[in-house]
């Protein structure tokens, strides 16, 4: 039996809930917080005073353009986005991004490194990201507070300790990524899979707000899936759930990186998963198709057909309210939607797709980056006053 929560537990929980509201919704009036959190006005007032004293929020009179309002307007509570921040990173196969993200989910600073075709070893990743953090620290405000760091990586992540068993490139084997990055930047770095974090970001502040059964599909050389069911991430026993790219859709099909044949990502093909402006991308293919190139048209048709088939399987198994296409799949979906929809409508069960929405990532390519920031903010939002106020590292 657990003891009943103490006053202190309740207060901590309310502080976290209020800060999370402001973090997710942006500037919010006290009146709206009162209504939304089901607490009375004086409790909200006491909580905001405490959070303001800790430097996490500010309260200000609402900016009123119409004028002449009756009664005293409710104060607006705003996150201290410039002052309270995290470091968020993404590790793609051939692309690294580092950002300083303020409370409220505002990207304050960002750096990027691309290396098409070759990729990065864990050591190179740590060096590059460590260098970026050193640069970004210089432009952070002097009274700034760094409250965490998180990374989204294009590889499977063991749930228990954040180890990467293999990939993104061959020199990654049982990589203790969290430890390595923590050493490089001098603070704890939380690790998550890019699609798992992408779905969190789209659910928090993207296309899937208010939608608790979501599949986020992230294309980037490979295809990853992040799944929310009843608002909770589907992680699997060891944290590896969602490897939808290796769903076999064609047993005698094309060889896959993983050693199997006919995996979804192998059948959809490199066109769909290559980034940039080269001809070997979906954009290049779509342009050629628009000019009447029959091979390109056929290529588009095939890509859309395979995409629709995989989505149909996922929809039958998980009955999501929404499928979000992110990374390179955003453009692929928009350019081949007639095929995707047709295949989906022919293949999935009509009841499983009845309320299905197909959307592109509202956060674009940055969905995993925003998700990494959410991971990094989690500790602060769970316990704003105890964990939030460590001085900025370094």
């Amino acid at each position: 039996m657990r003891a009943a929560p103490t006053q202190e537990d309740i207060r901590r929980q309310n502080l976290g809930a209020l800060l999370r509201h402001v973090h997710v919704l942006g500037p919010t009036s006290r009146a709206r917080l009162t209504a939304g959190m089901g607490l009375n006005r004086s409790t909200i007032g006491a909580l905001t005073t405490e959070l303001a004293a800790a430097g996490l929020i500010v309260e200000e009179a609402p900016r009123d353009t119409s004028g002449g309002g009756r009664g005293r307007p409710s104060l607006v509570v705003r996150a201290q986005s410039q002052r309270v921040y995290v470091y968020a990173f993404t590790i793609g196969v051939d692309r690294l991004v580092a950002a300083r993200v303020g409370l409220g989910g505002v990207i304050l600073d960002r750096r990027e490194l691309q290396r098409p075709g070759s990729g990065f070893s864990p050591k190179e990743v740590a060096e590059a990201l460590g260098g970026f953090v050193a640069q970004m620290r210089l432009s952070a405000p002097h009274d700034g507070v760094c409250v965490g760091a998180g990374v989204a990586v294009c590889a499977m992540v063991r749930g228990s300790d954040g180890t990467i068993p293999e990939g993104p490139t061959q020199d990654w084997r049982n990589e203790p990524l969290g430890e390595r990055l923590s050493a490089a930047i001098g603070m704890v770095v939380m690790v998550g899979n890019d699609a798992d974090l992408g779905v969190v970001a789209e659910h928090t502040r993207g296309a899937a707000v208010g939608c608790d059964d979501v599949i986020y599909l992230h294309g980037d050389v490979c295809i990853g899936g992040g799944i929310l069911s009843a608002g909770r991430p589907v992680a699997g026993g060891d944290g590896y759930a969602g490897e939808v790219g290796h769903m076999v859709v064609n047993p005698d099909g094309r060889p896959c990186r993983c050693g199997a044949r006919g995996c979804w990502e192998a059948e959809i093909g490199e066109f769909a998963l290559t980034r940039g402006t080269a001809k070997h991308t979906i954009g290049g293919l779509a342009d050629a198709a628009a000019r009447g190139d029959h091979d390109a048209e056929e290529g588009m048709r095939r890509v859309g057909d395979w995409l629709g088939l995989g989505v149909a399987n996922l929809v039958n198994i998980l009955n999501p309210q929404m499928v979000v296409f992110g990374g390179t799949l955003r453009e692929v979906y928009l350019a081949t939607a007639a095929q995707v929809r047709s295949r989906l409508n022919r293949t999935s069960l009509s009841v499983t797709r009845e309320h299905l929405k197909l959307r592109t990532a509202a956060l674009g390519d940055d969905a995993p980056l925003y998700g990494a920031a959410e991971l990094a903010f989690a500790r602060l939002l769970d316990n704003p006053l105890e964990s939030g106020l460590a001085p900025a590292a370094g």
Partner: protein
Amino acid sequence: MALSPTPAPPPASNPVLELRGVNKSFGAVHVLRDVDLSVYEGQVTALVGDNGAGKSTLVKCIGGIHTADSGEYFFDGAPVTVHSPRDASDLGVEIVYQDLALCDNLDIVQNMFLGRERRRGWVLDEDSMEQIAEETLAGLSVRTVSSIRQRVSSLSGGQRQTVAIAKAVLWNSKVVVLDEPTAALGVSQTAQVLELVRRLADNGLAVVLISHNMNDVFAVADRIAVLYLGRTAAQVNAGEITHSQIVELITSGQTEAFGPGAGRNGVNR
């Protein structure tokens, strides 16, 4: 649990705009024949059909540029008369026509307020107009224009389309009709306009999208209405039909899946 920032619109029950049995002739040419169309809040209704099927004519009847010869026009369930663009916009119905009608020598803000400043009986100063324009573009998550004081002549095709759409939603419109917004655009600009179209509906508007590109249609549509030789061949859910069936409906007015004679009453959900 978190507050939901924008409550999702409830599933559409009754159409916000509905046309029944609309006819329109130009002299001896009978262009629209007993056309039906239903449009719902929070949904994108794609309007498709071959060249000359009557899509733009229908849109001009919705927007009050043409007056139908016969037929009924319902808004929020009540019969209304729409004899001028003014009547339409008083209801909250805005049309973005194929030719856009933007003024090249004016900037984005000026274009968004062009012809509208005094219509609703209040005059806005420059600062307020700038702020409203900015908020409207931000509300649509438009980040592609660098300055709202840029002249429209300096914008790309996709940006011009964006400005025209933003102008249409500026006045709390309820229904926005877009006549071929992606026709002249390349792949990546088309993608941005499609996402904007989807966002309008997800924000609660009823959107009608005309397009000849079936990828555009299937990418964003909740429902698809097909015109064939001036008649409503079908109104179907996008989750219940395939590309080839739509192509059949466009080219022959019927599709096997719905049986022969699936005319205006054949598929209507």
